[in-house]
């Protein structure tokens, strides 16, 4: 056993660019900066929530970690071992320890295979046990995720969305992985079913000592499941913090606006809120803005530094709260006020 607090996954300056090709010759004309210079640790036994809006690079980062994508540069260390340059064959044993749960429970299960085969395939591929041992194991897994052993011979189409997601979780669990990367695992589900799956993730973590990277855009769900949260914007990490800290005292202007944008299911709270509405939309990741990538939309943007100096992640306070903003202290102290508050500026906001 390793001591708690020790990182299971360490990312150092991980970068993933995709080439943009144009013309008949498919010449490379640019690069999509999907993930840029991400440095991040995931500690054994914790859940790290990764949030951001579509196109921020959070899924690309997840896929790069399990090496479904090749990192362009940077180092990925899993359990103390550099895995960023391992070849296909060398990666195989590693796949046992690193599993993934996908967003769409309809697209991620082979419709022609029986549930037993879907969940048992990882065991078979890795040569675990005999045929009958595997069957017993799969049936146990079905029970673990809240399905019944009789479901062994059914096909995916016979299940609802929530049940399918349980099948996806059982498949990920089959090889007893150390780390599960869950990419939007509940966003395709209805709220009442969402809660069932969120609870399942938490129970399994306790029972199997799992570590999660939980990628989602729903800030409510991320807050609920995460010990720490990392916020991504246009390929960069802008804030990393213990979950409670982040939600109570967001430091990065992007995080502040993101939390403001989430409607709270309580009319009185809603009517009292002063909402910082973020203008405009995500810039193109092919030619990201200079300096701080958020400066084009930032309600707190300043005349100096923001446009020409890239802010690095730096610690603020005692709790291990990291933020990539030049002006975080001044914003936190209320010395810099946002430009857009409340509803009045929405047309101006749209016009930016």
């Amino acid at each position: 056993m390793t001591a708690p607090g020790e990182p299971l996954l360490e990312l150092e300056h991980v970068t993933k660019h995709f080439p943009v090709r144009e013309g008949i010759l498919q010449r490379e004309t640019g690069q999509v900066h999907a993930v840029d210079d991400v440095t991040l640790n995931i500690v054994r036994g914790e859940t790290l929530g990764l949030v951001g809006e579509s196109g921020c690079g959070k899924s690309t980062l997840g896929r790069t970690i399990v090496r479904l994508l090749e990192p362009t540069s940077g180092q990925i260390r899993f359990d103390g071992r550099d895995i960023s340059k391992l070849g296909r064959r060398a990666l195989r044993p590693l796949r046992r320890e690193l599993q993934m749960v996908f967003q769409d429970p309809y697209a991620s299960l082979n419709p022609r295979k029986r549930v037993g085969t879907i969940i048992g395939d990882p065991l078979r591929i890795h040569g675990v046990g005999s045929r009958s041992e595997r069957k017993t194991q799969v049936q146990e897994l079905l029970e673990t995720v809240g399905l019944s052993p009789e479901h062994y011979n059914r096909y995916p189409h016979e299940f609802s969305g929530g049940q399918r997601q349980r099948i996806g979780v059982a498949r990920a669990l089959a090889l007893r992985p150390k780390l599960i990367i869950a990419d939007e695992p509940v966003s395709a589900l209805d709220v009442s079913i969402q809660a069932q799956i969120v609870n399942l993730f938490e129970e399994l973590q306790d029972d199997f000592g799992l570590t999660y990277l939980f990628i989602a855009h729903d800030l409510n769900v991320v807050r609920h499941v995460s010990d720490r949260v990392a916020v991504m914007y246009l390929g960069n990490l802008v804030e990393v913090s213990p979950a409670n800290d982040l939600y109570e005292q967001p430091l990065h202007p992007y995080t502040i606006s993101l939390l403001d944008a989430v409607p709270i299911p309580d009319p009185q709270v809603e009517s009292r809120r002063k909402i910082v509405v973020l203008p405009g939309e995500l810039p193109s990741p092919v030619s990201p803005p200079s300096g701080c990538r958020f400066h084009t939309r930032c309600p707190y943007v300043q005349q100096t530094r923001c446009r020409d100096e890239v802010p690095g992640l730096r610690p603020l306070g005692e709790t291990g709260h990291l933020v990539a903003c030049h002006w975080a202290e001044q914003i936190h102290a209320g010395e810099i006020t946002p430009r857009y508050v409340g509803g009045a500026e929405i047309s101006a906001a749209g016009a930016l």
Partner: protein
Amino acid sequence: MTEALLDVEGLRVQFATEDGVVRAVDGVDFSLERGRVLGIVGESGCGKSVTSMTLLGLTRGANARFEGSVKFKGQELLTASESQLRKVRGAGIAMIFQDPMTSLNPVQKVGDQIVEMIRAHEDIDKRAARLRTTELFVEVGIANAASRIDAYPHEFSGGMRQRVMIAMALACSPDVLIADEPTTALDVTIQAQILELIAKLKDERGTSVILITHDLGVVARLADDIAVMYAGRIVEQGTKESIFYDPQHPYTWGLLGSIPRIDRPKPPKLHAIPGQPPSLVRPPQGCKFRPRCPHAFAACFEEPDLVARVEPATHLDRCWLTPDEKRGRRDETIQGTTGEEAA
């Protein structure tokens, strides 16, 4: 009571399918007053979208059967002819959908689509219609309106496309705007922009809105009244305040309890509603929520009517428990997620 623009009574919609008759909407009553926002909340398959599409005759088909009545300004829409309906669509009641990409014609300039729509309803020349389209683009916050009306749908982002849809919906100044999950496909910061826009339209134009969503946060921000739907019927209905602070139906409690909230300390566990929504072909006997309801008892095998059981009289629900029993039991499910200040 002010004059109701839209009156829905005993609406039933059934579709014949290979598996049997699907009772998609099974006895829905509500009315919508001028300048109000009615939020219809529920999960997939509860009938919220079928209800709203039926108002505009969009669910008609060989396998569909309708009962009840839908009156818009006194005119019956359920039995109206296609040409009568065409006059109502857009000019009287307009609709925006979840996915703005599939609701726009991809090979026609967005401005032309709106101009075409205006001219279908009004005797007005092309230049005037274009001018109005530009004004609408400005109103919904599309930058460079004059040049953007000549762009194609794919040249817009998701949020901007939804603004185009809203501009189109507003083109003939409808009395009622039906927004079916208008922000579900959008990112949260863009959602905030679109919700602001809908709120502004309601205030400035006095448009009534039917807001269909699964997101209780969205209705908390925007709605005046709320109807909670389950398995084809309304199980609870009332003002926003009564639904959030004095919820009467166990399904409403379940919804409130199953969403984590960013402004509250984290509960140890979310209150998931056990099981799944029932089949609409063979719905359970009695209260449709009974099989999933932890509070069900013998009486629940008979379905309660949607009536007022508490004050105010506009607050209706379908549950046999007494109001005292409800107030005693609901906190366990909701975990004080709402109503801290209401007590």
